[in-house]
């Protein structure tokens, strides 16, 4: 059809090139970004990589109907993250799903059983009196803190169980280091609240220390041996120290001081349960010069217990005037006490940064977390099966793609080159974006997502078919290719947009509402639908415009897929009549 409309094509001459350049730049930039970030493959989900995936569902406790909310769930995720990562698991991930589920994914090669036990239990926070402590790690000697002088070497004091503990601890390899540790309690000074509301029940019964009673010598010796052997600088060691410890028994524990050094503790039995903390928050001391502080409010039972323990501790000497705030077996803070705190609220001050204070406040709040979780599903995938599933998914994708390509080539001939190129662009974009989303938003390619991507081949190809059929319709009307492309596009565009919108809507609703595997699938479907629109607008259409100028397509070569004769086009009326002859001959 050799009757080009000069005006129209001239105006769109520069545009298609620009769009193509744009999308090519985008691809290059994204691919470059992918290689720069070092994540050249999409992160694989547990079902493809092997590992264990645990779904925990929060249970509503009677009397607390609103306990399951976003804040509580986020807090729970934080705790679980601490726990699984405390196990020495690399790349374990914990995330919320839906309103009341938490998914914990643990990659292969980890003790999944231990992880399951750790993760499923509710956070446990205890206040335990410190009987002995010692700083470990290289940093201890490298940077002695100026406050080391405030107290001498760990003095064996009159506390019953602590007596033995401290005496041996001073005999441990680094007595100087243990002296350094005294800096922490000083800075973490726990002061009585400025506005105490003295409760009537604040009778300081100092002698009634529960730790005094159960101390059999054998148990103490065992604890002592454990303490001596404890090396808090090792992650694996830290992970197991808190395991299986009953709150009513003394224990050993690890914790970091404000210099980031590890220190080990012997701790007495729990005096106050973390659930007795009603509220904890980080506040900035605007009046005094204390800087960031953490304030705690106790329940009535908690404030009574806390009053007792602080009254008793205040009379001891360092480090036995300290108590350890123990979260899941790890000492998160060990402030010292100077007076009994009976008001039901307390504040911990020290040289906190804002983040430090908020972290501590969060941890204190954890203990008060009312959520308990039940294991909803656990799926363990052996690495071999994961590999096989991934392989099967890839083969299925290749077969699907090949079938589509064959169909397109047979049906659309030369035109299929446009479709195949577009599919390739779409595939590259999908791959690169999936790879980037791994570290970006924690996207993991699982089996349903692979299925979504394969199904998306069809959706993407459908857009091209809608466009091509439109162009063919226009050619059948007797138009030559260039106007056919320009006229067909706006209509095809509308159809593509409307139907892609419906697809996207489905994906979005599913992603927001559903849980589990359905969500991964919905995400891929939504992503590929968006990419489909991008590719059709910025790649397929411009490419088509450019190709329409090529002789092969414009003249309707019989292998171009746009042969007017084969399409049964009508002779163009108002233009040249050249093409009418063959059509007529054919029809007659």
């Amino acid at each position, binding site marked *: 059809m050799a009757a080009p409309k000069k005006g129209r094509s001239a105006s769109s001459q520069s545009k298609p090139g620009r769009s193509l350049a744009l999308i090519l730049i985008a691809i290059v930039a994204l691919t470059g970004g992918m290689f720069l970030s070092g994540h050249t493959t999409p992160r694989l989900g547990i079902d493809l990589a092997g590992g264990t995936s645990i779904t925990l569902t929060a249970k509503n406790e009677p009397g607390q109907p609103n306990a399951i909310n976003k804040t509580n769930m986020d807090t729970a995720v934080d705790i679980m993250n601490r726990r699984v990562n405390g196990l020495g698991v690399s790349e374990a991930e914990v995330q919320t799903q839906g309103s009341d589920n938490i998914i914990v994914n643990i990659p292969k090669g980890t003790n999944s059983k231990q992880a399951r036990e750790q993760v499923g239990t509710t956070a446990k926070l205890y206040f335990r009196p410190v009987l002995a402590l010692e700083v470990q790690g290289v940093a201890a000697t490298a940077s002695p803190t100026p406050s080391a002088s405030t107290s001498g070497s760990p003095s064996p004091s009159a506390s019953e169980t602590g007596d033995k503990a401290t005496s041996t601890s001073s005999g441990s390899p680094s007595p100087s280091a243990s002296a350094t540790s005294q800096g922490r309690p000083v800075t973490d000074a726990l002061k009585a609240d400025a506005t105490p509301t003295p409760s009537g029940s604040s009778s300081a019964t100092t002698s009634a220390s529960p730790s005094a009673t159960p101390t059999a010598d054998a148990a103490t010796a065992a604890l002592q041996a454990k303490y001596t052997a404890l090396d808090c600088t090792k992650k694996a060691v830290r992970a197991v120290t808190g395991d299986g410890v009953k709150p009513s028994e003394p224990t050993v524990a690890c914790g970091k001081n404000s210099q980031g050094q590890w220190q080990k503790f012997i701790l007495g039995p729990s005096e106050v349960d973390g659930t007795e903390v009603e509220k904890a928050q980080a506040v900035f001391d605007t009046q005094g010069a204390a800087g960031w502080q953490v304030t705690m409010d106790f329940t009535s039972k908690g404030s009574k217990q806390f009053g007792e323990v602080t009254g008793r501790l205040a009379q001891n000497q360092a480090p036995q005037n300290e108590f350890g705030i123990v979260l899941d077996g790890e000492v998160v803070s060990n402030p010292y006490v100077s007076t009994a705190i009976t008001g039901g609220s307390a504040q911990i001050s020290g040289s906190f940064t804002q983040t430090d204070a908020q972290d501590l406040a969060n941890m204190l709040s954890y203990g008060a977390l009312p959520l308990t979780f039940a294991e909803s*599903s*656990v799926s*363990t995938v052996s690495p071999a099966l994961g590999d096989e599933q991934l392989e099967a998914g890839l083969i*299925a994708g290749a077969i699907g*793609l090949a079938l589509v390509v064959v169909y397109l080539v047979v049906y659309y*001939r030369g035109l299929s080159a446009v479709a195949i190129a577009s599919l390739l662009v779409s595939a590259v974009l999908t791959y690169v974006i999936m790879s980037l989303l791994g570290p970006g938003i924690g996207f993991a390619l699982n089996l349903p997502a692979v299925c979504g991507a394969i199904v998306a081949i069809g959706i993407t190809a459908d857009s091209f078919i809608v466009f091509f059929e439109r162009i063919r319709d226009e050619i059948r009307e007797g138009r030559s290719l260039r106007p056919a492309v320009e006229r067909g596009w706006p209509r095809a565009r509308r159809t593509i947009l409307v139907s892609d919108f419906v697809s996207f809507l489905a994906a979005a609703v599913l992603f927001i509402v559903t849980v*589990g595997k359905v969500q991964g699938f919905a995400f891929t479907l939504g992503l590929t639908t968006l990419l489909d629109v991008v590719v059709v607008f910025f790649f397929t259409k411009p490419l088509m415009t450019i190709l329409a100028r090529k002789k092969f397509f414009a003249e309707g070569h019989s292998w171009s897929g746009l042969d007017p004769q084969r399409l*049964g086009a009508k002779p163009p009326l108002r233009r040249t009549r050249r093409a009418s002859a063959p059509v007529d001959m054919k029809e007659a």
Partner: protein
Amino acid sequence: MSKLGTLGARLHRGEIGYDFVGKRFIWYGLSILITITAILGLSVRGLNMGIEFEGGAVFTIEKTSVSVSQAEKYAEEASGHDAIVQTLGKDGLRIQVATIDTAAADKVSAKLATDLGIPEKDITGELVGPSWGDQVANKAWQGLVIFMFLVVIYLAIAFEWRMAVAALVALIHDITITVGIYALVGFEVTPGTVIGLLTILGYSLYDTVVVFDSLKEQTKDITKQTRWTYSEIADRSINGTLVRSINTTVVALLPVAGLLFIGGGVLGAGMLNDISLSLFVGLAAGAYSSIFIATPLVADLKEREPQMKALKKRVLAKRAQAGQDDAPTATVSDEQPYDDEDEDAAPAVVGPRNQPASRNRGRGRPSGKRR
């Protein structure tokens, strides 16, 4: 291909075509029949819900020399419950134990490992508490309802409420058929099935929307002409987009077929198989419903409008006046009379690209041949 292309051209021009709207009652009847069968199957046989919904454990073992019956015995001994064992691929096994909780499943897994003589880490286990399946299913239903609600609103805005209603009916139709087939054949319903089913949502509508879009375009100025009734134009729309519909459906089904082949043939039971099976059934139903159900339904609803009734009257009156046979069903033979009236017909009949003059010319010869 040349034949296909010509067919496309003739469908496009309306020279040939199937009278989808005229024969709609046959298809309505067929669909109602299928739907009733599906509902009956659903209520009588019920769905075969998988472990993921009922609660229990599925253990998959990649390689073992233990026979199915032996494994069944082991599993029942270990769990104290009935176990279903299937072979998987070449020498793998899939062991399902219903109604055991996640804690008990651990012990079963350990016991199985010793019984079968393989390291426990080689056992792939899927342990599901019963409430989780409920939750997955509930959320899926919730998503379905929200989606339907939103899509009806969207289609009502983008097109009109009649099309929205018709699309919704077609959608429910597809889902009912798919679920019914699952009930009748007794395929196991797993989260994969649900995923497939939910994907049908978007996909079934994709086809429907393509037809509706063409229908909307062609009926833009329908009241300004007197040649065709709404139903006839609807018919033309379906026929005009038929090639497109067939192509999009085939292209959509091909990758799913690839999945089904690999999922079923290579991996045996599993997620890939489940998703692709329900997708395959649903997509086929979706293609059928958008052509045979959705559009005729729109035509039906439209014809009830006073405007369209009036139009139909005018059209019929005009045809009677012209002294031609006015059987509205035979589109092929009908084509000719309209062509004769082309000159005095309103120009904006079927969208801008069907200009009367060119229609007349292009059509003249083949029709003449037919006479």
